[in-house]
């Protein structure tokens, strides 16, 4: 899903025909469980609150943590598939050598941003760990979520770099 010009759809091959690999099964399974979990928590909370007068305690913060985990678990998949939105309007009309150079630069910039985000999330995780930060209702520790996010942001940065060798710009 991207704004593409002439080369439109280079990356938008229908996923339904693509084969799933280890990353898809591992992280994808994780994402699927988190999505089911998010849905389930809301349903149990709403139904429990309205019909049985017993809301799920901590539904708010469980949702928060599952959402955070979901986003960062899916980030490597999105990055590897080249699904971050790009604008291909002008780029398609540039001479081929310039296109090749900017493509490499764009990939390096993407990887750098992801790398910095990973590093900053790591700092966040360390700080949360030191402070022993926990959620309000259930006292769940926050640091592990930040660790998880940092790790997967780093994986995404690596996968973004790998795209340099994958010939993403045909």
């Amino acid at each position, binding site marked *: *899903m991207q704004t593409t010009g002439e080369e439109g*759809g280079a990356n938008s091959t229908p996923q339904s025909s693509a084969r799933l690999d280890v990353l898809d099964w591992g992280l994808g399974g994780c994402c699927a469980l988190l999505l089911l979990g998010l849905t389930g928590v809301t349903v149990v909370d709403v139904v429990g609150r*309205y019909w049985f007068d017993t809301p799920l305690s901590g539904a708010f913060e469980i949702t928060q943590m599952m*959402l955070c985990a979901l*986003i960062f678990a899916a980030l490597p998949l999105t990055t590897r598939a080249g699904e*971050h939105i790009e604008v*291909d309007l002008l780029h398609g009309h540039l001479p081929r050598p310039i296109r090749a150079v900017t493509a490499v*630069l764009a990939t390096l910039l993407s990887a750098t941003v992801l790398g910095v985000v990973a590093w900053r999330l790591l700092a966040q995780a360390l700080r949360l760990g030191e402070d022993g930060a926990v959620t309000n209702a259930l006292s769940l520790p926050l640091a592990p979520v930040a660790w998880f996010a940092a790790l997967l942001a780093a994986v995404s940065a690596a996968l973004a770099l790998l795209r340099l060798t994958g010939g993403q710009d045909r």
Partner: protein
Amino acid sequence: MTESLIAFAILLGLIFAKVPIAFAMALVGAVGFALLRGWGASWSMIGSVAFETGLSYSLSVVPLFILMGNLLTISGVSHGLYAAANRLLGGSRGGLAMASVLACGGFSAVCGSSLATAATMSKVAMPSMRRYGYADSLATGSIAAGGTLGILIPPSVVLIIYGLITESDIGKLFIAGIIPGVLGLLFYIGAIAVATRIKPELAPKSEGTEPFSRRDRLGVLAVLALFLLIMVGIYGGFFTPTEAAGIGAAAAFVIALAMGGVSAGQIFRACLESARTTAMIFAIIIGAEIFSNFINFAGLPDGLAYWISGLELNPYLVILGIVLIYIVLGCVLESLSMILLTVPVFYPLLYELDFGVEILADPEYALIWFAVIVVVVTEISLISPPVGLNVFVLRSVLHDVSLGTIFKGVTPFWIADILRLALLIAVPWLSLWLVEAM
């Protein structure tokens, strides 16, 4: 303000050099913030924005509404919607095209993604329009345009994100979208009637009606039930707009299973696809957040509001200027990034403008009205050349139709949209009446 303008210029440069929009915004925002406040402040800003956006409870609607849409897409309810709309409108000239618009509007309202709607509906509606001898331009145009309707008809992820940026009441935003959304549907149907009158060769005089199976009926009922469940749930106080997404996703599971023929593999892939789209959207949200932290610190929104109010322009002229900026930006930017980048800059202006209309004197209402305008302009951008995304999606699904043909087919709808936009700006009451009545 100068810093902000330079930053916008660099940002556009990076975007045109094919740097993913999310990363370009994060990069320019972080560097700009660092230049104003020092690197230490910028580093810690990045970490907390990334983590806290991830933990944002209200944004949990994003993955869940996307999941709901993907589950509905695989469930096959789209065929039923099309068959029902065909029953309703099949008699008149251009009836199948009108049915496509109606079915697209209905499907995209609950599916939430105009791109998924265009892709799904093209498979359902295109074959029958071809069979009855419709011109490719009108057939593809009605699907591409019809798919845009859903981002205004609730539930709408775009309106939720607008609500989070401007701290508006999401329930009220949803209600405000209904009349303008239905108006869009009627204007599109009108556009088809006018286009086929001017050029009768676009569509056959009349066509038979498609068969309507039991499965089709189940599909229509399921979509209606889902829409009602969400609206009644929100306004009856059973759940919040945020929770509506989770309930909707659960209901979509039930629908997918009840419709039959959906395999476990398909459900897994729908989850996988939803997760990937979620990460893509959150990357943009985090990037935009970093960028707007910088823009806010550089004082652009306040500076702009101060400058504009100093000019003492006619407020409608200011709105017109903003709309023009959106139409130009919409030609090059993807819709969500456009909204995330511009709404934080423009919405403080609404507090400064005095429209002389009683209903807009309340800033809360002015913001809701502005939301409708922004979303309609975004809908227009989805079908505007050169990069209207819906047009590209159709092109990638239908290999034998040229981009030019689709853009030509979209023209009547584009004109209808501009008329609707003018009407909505001139008559704020259309967007606000239901909000006030609730």
